[in-house]
C-alpha cells in the first residue's frame, strides 16, 4: 500500500460526491440552523415568560428603548444580509474581487450593528441603570440580545477570516503568518473604529449636533482612536492590494454560501427579536 500526499484542496470525496447532491457543508449548516432554532426558541421563551409575569423592580421599558436606534440597526442588518447574498452570488460566478468587496461591506454593516448594540447596552447601563442584576428584565433582555450579539460577532469574525482567506496565494507560498497579521490589523481597526465611532456619537450628543465645536471636541478626545483607525485602514488597503493569483475561487463558493446561511439566520433571529422584544412593548 503506498500513500502519497495529495495537494491541499483535493477533497472530492468530501464535498461534492454526495448522495443527495447537496454539498456536505450546506447540509451541515442547515442542520445546525435547525438546532439553533431550538436554542433561540428557549431564550425567547424565557424572555417572554418573564415579560408576561410581573416581576419586581421592573423598569419603564418603553422609556428605555430608542425605537430610532433599533430600527436603524435592524435596517443595517437587513442590508448586510443583502450584501452577503450578493457575495455568495459573486463567488459562485468566480468573481473574487467582487466577492471581497461584498464581504467587506457585510463586515462593515455587521460592525455597525455591533456598535449600535454596544452603544445601546452602555446607554442602558450608565444612563438608565439597567444592569444584568437590576431586574429580571435586565437579565433576560441582555442575555437574549447579547447572545444574538455574540452570534453576530462570531459571524463577523468568520467573514473576516473568509475575507483574509481570499488572499491565500495560489502558488503555495507560506502564508499563515501574513494571514495572521491581516487578522490582527482587522482586530485593531475594529476596536479603534468602534471606539472612535462611539466617541463621535457621544460628542454629537454632548454638543447637540454637528458643529465645529463638536468636531474639535471629538478629535481632541478620541485622537488616538481616530489615528489608529486611519492607520489601520491604510494598512488594510495595502494588504488588500495583492494582485497575485490566489487559490480562492468558485470552488469556495460553498464555503461562502454556508457562511451566508449562518449570517442570514442571525438576521432572521433579529427579525423575531425586533418584533418580540422591542415592538410588542409599545402596545
Amino acid at each position, binding site marked *: 500500500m503506498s500513500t502519497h500526499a495529495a495537494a491541499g484542496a483535493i477533497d472530492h470525496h*468530501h464535498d*461534492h460526491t454526495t*448522495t*443527495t447532491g447537496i454539498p456536505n457543508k450546506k447540509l451541515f449548516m442547515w442542520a*445546525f440552523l435547525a438546532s439553533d432554532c431550538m436554542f433561540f426558541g428557549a*431564550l425567547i421563551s424565557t424572555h417572554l415568560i418573564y415579560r408576561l409575569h410581573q416581576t419586581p423592580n421592573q423598569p419603564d421599558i418603553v422609556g428605555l428603548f430608542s425605537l430610532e436606534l433599533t430600527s436603524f440597526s435592524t435596517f443595517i442588518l437587513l442590508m448586510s444580509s443583502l450584501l452577503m447574498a450578493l457575495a455568495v452570488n459573486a463567488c459562485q460566478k468566480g468573481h473574487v474581487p467582487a466577492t471581497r468587496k461584498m464581504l467587506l461591506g457585510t463586515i462593515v454593516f455587521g460592525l455597525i450593528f455591533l456598535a449600535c448594540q454596544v452603544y445601546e447596552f452602555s446607554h442602558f447601563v450608565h444612563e438608565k441603570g439597567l444592569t444584568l442584576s437590576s431586574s429580571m428584565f435586565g*437579565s433576560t433582555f441582555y442575555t437574549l440580545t447579547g447572545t444574538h450579539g455574540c452570534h453576530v460577532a462570531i459571524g463577523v469574525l468568520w467573514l473576516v477570516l473568509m475575507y483574509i482567506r481570499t488572499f491565500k496565494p495560489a502558488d503555495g507560498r507560506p502564508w499563515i503568518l501574513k494571514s495572521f497579521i491581516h487578522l490582527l490589523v482587522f482586530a485593531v481597526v475594529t476596536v479603534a473604529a468602534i471606539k472612535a465611532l462611539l466617541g463621535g456619537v457621544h460628542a454629537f450628543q454632548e454638543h447637540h449636533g454637528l458643529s465645529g465645536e463638536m468636531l474639535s471636541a471629538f478629535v481632541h478626545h478620541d485622537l488616538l482612536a481616530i489615528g489608529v483607525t486611519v492607520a489601520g485602514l491604510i494598512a488594510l488597503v495595502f494588504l488588500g492590494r495583492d494582485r497575485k493569483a490566489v487559490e480562492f475561487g468558485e470552488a469556495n463558493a460553498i464555503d461562502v454560501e454556508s457562511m451566508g446561511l449562518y449570517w442570514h439566520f442571525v438576521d432572521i433571529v433579529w427579525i423575531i427579536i425586533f418584533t418580540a422584544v422591542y415592538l410588542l412593548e409599545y402596545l
Partner: protein
Amino acid sequence: MSAHAQTDSVGHATHTAPPAEKRSWLLTRPTAKTGIVSWLTTVDHKKIGLMYGISALFFFLVGGVEALLIRLQLAVPNNTFISHQLYNELFTMHATTMIFLAVMPLSAAFFNYMMPLQIGARDVAFPRLNGFAFWVFLAGAIVINVGWFMKSGAPDAGWFGYAPLTSKAYSNQFTHDMSTDLWVMGLQILGVSSVVGSLNFIVTIINMRAPGMTMMRLPVFTWMTLVTAFLIILSFPAITIALVELMMDRSFGTAFFDISNGGLPILWQHLFWIFGHPEVYILILPAMGIISEILPTFSRKPLFGYPIIVFSGATIGFLGFGVWSHHMFTTGMGTVATAAFSLMTMAIAVPTGVKIFNWIGTLWGGHLQMRTPMMFALGFVWMFMMGGFSGVMHSAAPADAQQQDSYFVVAHFHYVLIGGSVFALLAGIHYWFPLIFGRKVSEFWGKLSFWVIFSGFNITFFPMHFLGLNGMPRRTAVYDGNMGWNDANLIATIGALILGVGIAIYFTVMIYTYFKGEKTSHDVWDARTLEWAVPSTPPPEHNFDVIPTVHARDAYWYEKNHQAEIAKEQAAHAADEASHGGIHMPSQSWFPIIAASGLLTGALFFVNHIMIGAIAGGAIMFLGVYLWASEGPGGYHIHLDDKNHKKH
C-alpha cells in the same frame, strides 16, 4: 449508478491539483499510523469509535463503583458508612456519569465505528470534526469529574439540578466551592461535543451513502443513529440555554432563577426536561437499533416489518418532544396540562410496542441461534418491556403522584436504562467484537456473564418497585428500620454485588479475548448488513477496497447470495476508482485536540474565576480552529495494487 456518476454535475475543476505545496512545519500533517501520535491526531472513524468505547467503558466502571457505594450505604437502615454529603455527590455523579459519560458515548462509539461501515462509506463527512467531538467529550468528562480531586467535592445537586438548589445561595455558598460550576460547565462542554458529533452523523448518513443505499435500505441501526442525532441537535439547545442562564446567575448576577427577583424555578424544570425526556430516547434508540441488527442475524431472517420499525423509531423521537412534563406531574401544573401530558406519554407506548411486536415477529419462524449477543438481545426485549410497563404506570398522573421521586421511579428507569440500553450495548460489544478485533469471545464465558448480569440485575431492581410503592423516597442517604424497607434494600444490595460480579466477568473475558481469544474468520455470524462486507477483520483503514454497490436492504446478505454478479461489478468500480487516483483518505491533524484542549483549559480557569486563564484557553481554542481552517482538508491516496493486500 456508480459513485462517480454523481459527481458529474459538480464538475472536475477542483481536481486539477495545485502546485506541490510548501507548508510551514506548523501545518504539516501528521502521518503516524501507529503509536500515540496516531491516536492523538486520528481522523479515522474507527479509531475515534474505539476511543469513545474505551472511555465510555471506563466511565461505566466509575459509575458502577459509585452505584455500589450507594448500595452499600443503603444495605441496612441508619447506616453511617457514607455521609449525607458524600451520598448526594455519589448519586449525582453516578447518574451524570452513567448517562453522559457511559451510555451516550458508548452509543457514540458504535455510531462512529459501525454507521459509516453500514452505509458503505470510507469515513464520516467531516473527519477532523469527528475527532474534535471526541476530544471535547473527554474535556467535558474531565471537568465534571475533577471535583472528586478538589476540596469543594463533586457536584451534588442531583442529575437534573433543580433550581434554586443550584443557585449560589444553596449550593457551594462558600467562595472556595465550585462543584456546581464544574457541573454546569462540564455539561455545556458535553453538549458541544454531542451536537457537533451529531451534525456530522446527520450529514454522513444523508450524504455519504454508497450507491444504491437508499434511505429505506439503511440498516436499522443507522436509522436509529440518524433519529438519535436529530434528537440530540434538537434537544441539547434547551439544556444549554438552561445551563447558560444558570451560569449567568452564578457568575454574573442575573436573576433567572432568583426568587427574590421574581425568578421562577419551575422554568428550569421545563427547560431541563424539554431536553431530559428526549435524552432518555437518545439513550434507548441506539440500543433498539443494535437489537434490530442482532435479532435478524441470529434468527437468520430479515427484520419483520422493517418500514414500520423505522417509522416507529422516528415517531418515538418526534413524540418524545411533547411529553417532557410527565416528569413534573407533581409540580401543580393544573388539570389540563397534566391530562395533556399524561395522554401524550401513554401514546408513546404504541410505537414502542410496535417495535416489540416486530422483534417477536422477527423471531417467529426463524432459526434462532442462541449465541451470547442473542441472549443479551432477548434479555433486552424482556427487561425493556418491563421498564416500559412501569413507564406506562408513571404516565397515569394520579398514580404517579404516589410514585414520583420514590424508588418506583428508580426501578423504572434502571429497567429501561440497564435492562434496555446497557443490555443492548453489551450485546453490541459481543456482536461486533469479532469485526473490530478479529477475535471471538468464548460462548461459555459470554453466556455465564449474561446469566450473572441478568439475575443480578433483577435481584437488584425488582424489589425497588415494592420499595417505591411502600413509600421509600429516592435520594435518601439513610432510612429508618421501622418502615418495612429493610429486606428489599438488603436484597437489592446483594443483587448489585452479583451484578458487579457479572460485569467484572464480562470485562475480564473481553480483555482476555482481546489478547488471547480465538481468531475468527471474517463474518463469523453469517451477518446481513454491510459492515461485515469489509475485506478483513479488523477492517483496513480505508474500510472497503471498493465502495460497495447496494442492491437490497440486507446488503451483505444479498451480496453473499449473488457473488458472481457482485464480483463483476466490483472489478469495474475498482478500475474506475484507480483511474481516479486511488482511494482518497483524509489526512490526520493535530488541531482538533489542540482546539479541545483550549476549551478544557478555558473551562477549568473559568470555574476557578481566573478570567485571564479563561481567556487564554479561549485563545488556544481560537488558534486551534484558525490553524485547522488554514491547513485545509488535506488528503492522500491509497493504491491497493501496490500491495496485494486486496482480497479476491
